[in-house]
Structures are given as C-alpha cells and as structure tokens.
C-alpha cells in the first residue's frame, strides 16, 4: 500500500466527453420501444395463445426432448472429435487417413440426408448380424429395435457434428506451442499422456468458444430430426400445435422463446467452462494464490504436509 502524502497532488483530470454515445443510446431505446409497442398492440401476434401454450405439457416435453437430443449428440460428437483430432496428429498414417476421410464424408454430405439415412437404415438392413464373413452368424438383432427413432436422431446428429468439431479440436491442438510437447516428452511422458494432460487442457481455451457456438447451432439443428422421423422435439411439437390451432405465429414465438431461454442457460455454462480452462492464462492476477501456505506448513511439520497440502494446495 502506498501511503498518501499530503503534499502529493493527485491528478483529477476531466474525462473526454462522448455526447454522440448518448444520442445513439436514445435512438436505440426509441427503436426498441417502437418494436415492443408494435408487438404488444398488434392483435395478430395472439399473445393470449402464446400464454396458453408456452407452458403446455407437450411444449415442455418438446423442450426436454430437444435438450436430450442436443446434449447426447454433442457428447457423442465431442468424444469422437477428440479421438479424430488425436488421430489426425498421430504418427500412424492409418489413423491420419481414417480421420481425414471421416471428416470429409460427414462434413461433405447434408445433415438432413444423413438423418434420412439413419431413419431408413431398418429398411436397408432389417437385421444386424455379427458373424464370420461368409461363415456362421453369431448374434443378430432386429435393426428397428436397436436403432429406433431416438437412437437414429442422436447418432445422425452426433456423427455429423463430430466432423465439424474434429476440425475445431484440431485447430485448438495446433494452437498450443510446440515447446509444450517437447518439454513433456523430455520428462519421459508418453505421447498419449502428453496430449491428454498437457496439450488438450491448454487447447480447450481455444476450443470452448467455437464449441459453444456449435452447441447452440445443434440446439436449432435438432429441428431437422423430422427427417428420421422423430416427432417429439420442440419445433415439431409447436408446428403440430400451430396446424391444429391454425395460428402459426404465436406458436413460432413459443418455440423461439424456449430456444432463447436454453441458449441463455448454455451461455452461462460456457462462461464457467471458459473460466476453468483459462486458469493460469486469462485474468491470471485474479487467480487464487496462497503463496506461503503450502511452504510454511511443509517446514512446520513435514509429515502432516502430505495431508495438509492435498486440500490446501489448489488443484
């Protein structure tokens, strides 16, 4: 702390004024009021209908299914993307080619087509048979029971997304300085361990923002699952209600409202995930630092330190 000297004359400068910012703010506020006024007073929005359906059981179930589709397909996509990105950087040429072809195919064909394909796989292959080629069959299942509409929708969305995410993860891995790999390898760490413990956690800083983007994109892409056909998601349900009531606008608003709510929740989650992976790099001066605690306890009682530091030393 620097003590304030009475003779020290602190600068109290007049800041630069920005009058046009106030004008701009007023204009935007005015526009906003006009939009709100037009929406509330225009009877064709049917806000009463909006209120009737926004918490309707079918709509809430649609929100639930949309969340399930988004979450499970993103989990599949992220797991595959990590694998694909690691494979792409592998010394093994077979891994590199397989990864490249996967991305090429799933990124190169429309997601709608892929969903149609997974929806009709039961027609292409009525039975799934595990056996020796040209030999006896060991197990078999009915395709329709294994790959029902839910599975087809999740697998279709997940595999498609994995191709896009793989490129995001690859960019993230490439953003980490080469010296990190060298330092870790010089310590005798195996490459897979280096990737998992050293490179990927640093790459996550770069990977999270575009992955958040993809997740929010996926939330809306789930509306394409009618191609499977999967008929329980938010868009399908609100469309069905719209054609039943002959009032498409308020039900579009219902869907838009819920997509916006979910997106907002995702953004909050993303903030915390970004903060986690930014530790040591972003806002580093605010990082929790208890400098002397660990060392002091080590000197005081070396045996007890082992327990003391496991909780005291921030992991």
């Amino acid at each position, binding site marked *: 702390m620097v003590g304030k000297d009475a003779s020290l004359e602190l600068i109290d400068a007049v800041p630069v004024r920005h009058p046009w910012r106030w004008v701009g703010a007023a204009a935007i506020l005015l526009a906003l009021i006009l939009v709100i006024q037009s929406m509330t007073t225009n009877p064709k929005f049917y806000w009463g209908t909006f209120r009737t359906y926004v918490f309707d059981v079918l709509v809430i179930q649609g929100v639930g299914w949309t969340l399930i589709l988004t979450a499970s397909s993103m989990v599949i996509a992220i797991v595959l993307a990590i694998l694909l990105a690691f494979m792409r950087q592998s010394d093994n040429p077979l891994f590199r080619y397989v990864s490249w072809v996967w991305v090429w195919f799933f990124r190169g064909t429309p997601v709608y087509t892929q969903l149609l394909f997974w929806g009709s796989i039961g027609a292409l292959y009525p039975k799934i048979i595990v056996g020796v080629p040209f030999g006896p069959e060991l197990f078999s299942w009915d395709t329709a029971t294994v790959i029902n509409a839910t599975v087809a929708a999740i697998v279709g969305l997940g595999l498609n997304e994995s191709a896009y995410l793989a490129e995001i993860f690859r960019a993230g891995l490439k953003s980490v*300085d080469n*010296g*990190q790999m*060298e*330092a*870790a*390898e*010089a*310590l*005798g*760490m*195996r*490459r897979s*361990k280096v990737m998992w*413990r*050293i490179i990927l*956690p*640093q790459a996550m800083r770069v990977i999270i923002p575009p992955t958040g983007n993809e997740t929010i994109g996926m939330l809306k892409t789930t509306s394409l699952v009618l191609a499977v056909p999967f008929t329980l998601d938010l868009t399908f349900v609100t469309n069905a209600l719209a054609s039943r009531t002959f009032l498409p606008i308020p039900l579009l608003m219902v869907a838009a409202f819920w997509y916006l709510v979910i997106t907002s929740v995702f953004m909050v989650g993303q903030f915390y995930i970004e903060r986690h*992976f930014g*530790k*040591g*790099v972003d806002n*580093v*001066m605010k*990082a929790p*630092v*208890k*400098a*002397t*605690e*660990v*060392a002091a306890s*080590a000197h005081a009682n*070396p045996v007890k*330190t*082992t*327990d003391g*530091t*496991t909780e005291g*030393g*921030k*992991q």
Partner: protein
Amino acid sequence: MTDTTSTASPVPAGVKPLVDIQGVHKFFGEHHVLKGIDMSVKPGEVSVIIGPSGSGKSTLLRCINLLETISAGRIYVHDALIGFKEINGKLHDLNTKQIAGQRREIGMVFQRFNLFPHKTALQNVIEAPTQVKRQSKAAAKLKALELLEMVGLSDRANFYPAQLSGGQQQRVAIARALAMEPELMLFDEPTSALDPELVGDVLEVMKKLAKSGMTMIVVTHEIGFAREVGDTLTFMDGGVVVESGNPRDIIANPQHDRTKEFLSRVL
C-alpha cells in the same frame, strides 16, 4: 573410443564416460548441421558447449534426449545406445515406450522454459513423478517442495507460470526436470531469454547443482559460468568441434583462430 576431452576432466582417467558421443552427423534435409561430433562426458562432470548460433550446439543437445534423431554415428548414455537397438549389426528404431524410458534418465531445461501454463509451479514439478513414475501425490509434493526450496522458490509453489518472472520460471523448470531424478541434465541456453538482472539467480542454481555432483551438459553464452563451473569447454562452429579442453585454458589461451574470434566477440 576417441576421447579428446578426457585430459581436461578433473574426474580420474579410466572412469567410464556417462555420455559418449561418437561420430555423430545430423542432416535436416540437405542441410548438414552436425558433421562428425565426438565428445564424452564423465559422471559428475560439467561440460559446457559454446559457439556461434547455427553452430549445431543446440541440435547436438537435442539429439542426446531424442528430440532430434541422429543421421549417423552413435550416442551412448550410461552404456545404452540412444534411440536405437542393435540387433545383428543392424539398427532398429526404439518404440515410443522405450524412447520415453530413455528420456526419463535425462533432464532437459529449455531456453524458453516451456513450463505448463495451466499448472502451478508445484503442479508442474509433480506432473512427471506422479504421471510417469506413478509416485503418490503426497510423496511427489514433499519432494517437489524440497526442490522448489533448493531453487529458492518454495514461497511460489502455488503461483502459475504467468505470475512468475522469467528467472523464476526457469528455476521452476530446473526443479521440474530434477523431480524425475535424472542422472544427466541438459541445459539449452537456459539464460538466453532472461533479462540480464535475472540471469544470476539461474546460474546460482546451476552452480549449486554442479557442486552436488550432477552430470551436466550446458549450451550457453555465459563465458563466466564456463570458466567458473565448467570442467570441460567445447567450442563448436559450423557443425564441428573446433577445440575442447579445460575452460580456463581455452578462454585464456584459445588455440584456433575461430575460437579466438568468437571469444573476442562475446567476452
């Protein structure tokens, strides 16, 4: 075994070298970087390599712990052929597991520190012992705190690298390498990226380490360190060893024109 440096070493003659470099060549594509290097380092010896940039001194160091693969010759550390296995006179590449095993015995300190930025100083030091040697976290921490104490940074254990000065980061990097209890330490221009007033702390730690009997190969521009701590000094230029011997003799009385010229520029 041609050994041109042994005369200068204080270690008694007849002791087997810990590091034995024989006729090593390295090509990067068409570029011939190392042109037949012979060198040996005895246990406990501090071997300092100096030379102009592009002389191949860093490349030689990187070849010893397999960050680069040699194109010809042999490198032995503790009688083990580095990077290869010789079966019936034919060399076979080591697999990744065997390479990792050889690296465990060799610590390396880099010019640009290369600490893991997402881990605290303490986490940096315990990473390899817990992950590679499978030590318990508690035991690794105790050892790590000793090492951080040794490099004068026990009060910085929970700081992230970005919260440390360059000199502090480099000392953590030294502690991190020592945590694997290597029998050989390689230093690749450890003070070249530091502000002048921070160089001293790092050199102090290296001196302490040398006194403790660690075998060290140090690529540096710090002639003072070479004179004071070095047991042998090797001057490299253009991918060859120009001369090597007792550091004090070479610095006071260089035999080759190229050595004279280089020393006159850095002293």
